[in-house]
């Protein structure tokens, strides 16, 4: 694969959606201790009270976000910490780490990309009254999984 192959070409040729889905499933199973499966996006729209995001630079340039409601973010944090009580800071921290690990796991699975792609530290937004404008050109791969029957959206937006 040449280094200047566009995002659109690579994402179609290599079919990145299953790669992203696998990265999400592995992170939830190993770090949260529960199995999640992708569901039809048209039937499940997550409430975006918590959004974790991480930037990618280099061979892949863009942003990966994980979005869910506040109750789900809290439950993810509790499960990561072994069903102990969690503070508000820990909820954001936990979702940021989930986002970080999904991004890392995804790029580790793309041949020839991992060496040339860097990740930022995670950022977490709480609240729904915001608009997110990433400096990408609209090319995206998205999966929605059910965590305890509540949808969690994972979206990768990249520059071509």
């Amino acid at each position, binding site marked *: 694969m040449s280094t200047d192959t566009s995002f659109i070409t690579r994402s179609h040729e290599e079919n990145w959606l299953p790669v992203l889905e696998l990265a999400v499933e592995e992170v939830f199973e190993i770090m949260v201790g529960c199995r999640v499966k992708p569901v039809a996006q048209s039937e499940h729209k997550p409430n975006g009270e918590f959004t974790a995001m991480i930037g990618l630079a280099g061979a892949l340039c863009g942003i990966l976000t994980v979005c869910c409601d506040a109750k789900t973010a809290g439950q993810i944090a509790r499960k*990561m*910490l072994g069903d102990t009580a969690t503070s508000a800071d820990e909820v954001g921290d936990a979702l940021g*780490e989930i986002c970080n690990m999904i991004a890392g*796991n995804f790029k580790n699975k793309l041949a020839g990309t991992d*060496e040339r792609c860097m990740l930022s*530290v995670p950022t977490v937004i709480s609240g729904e009254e915001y608009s997110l404008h990433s400096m990408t050109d609209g090319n995206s791969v998205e999966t929605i999984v059910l965590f305890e029957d509540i949808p969690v959206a994972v979206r990768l937006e990249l520059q071509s």
Partner: protein
Amino acid sequence: MDKIQALIVDDSSVMRKIVERSLRQAGIELEKVVEASNGAEALSALHNNLVDLILCDINMPVMDGLEFVREVAKLESAKHIPIVMITTEGSESHVVQALTAGARGYIRKPFTPDQVKEHVLPVLGKKP
């Protein structure tokens, strides 16, 4: 196994707790756990604490994990302490950079307690 003192370096407090729990699940008895949220804090912690093991992330603000490992290698008082990286950066070049800088082990996130056991016990001179 004797109880040990561990320094856990990660900018995520949640991840520091998970790493500590994983060490305990690996059967490692911890007398004391010192936490730091970046490499610079960890260097300060090493001046005030005697530790037997360091677990360290790579992507952190202020001072990243690779620079921290290089700085530890310069310290007479600390260069013998085994360092195991625990990070999302899974590329071969990151592994090589970390091991060349002085790290003794490398664990990719996401990780299981068994992986912690497999990579940490040998650097403590124990069989996994």
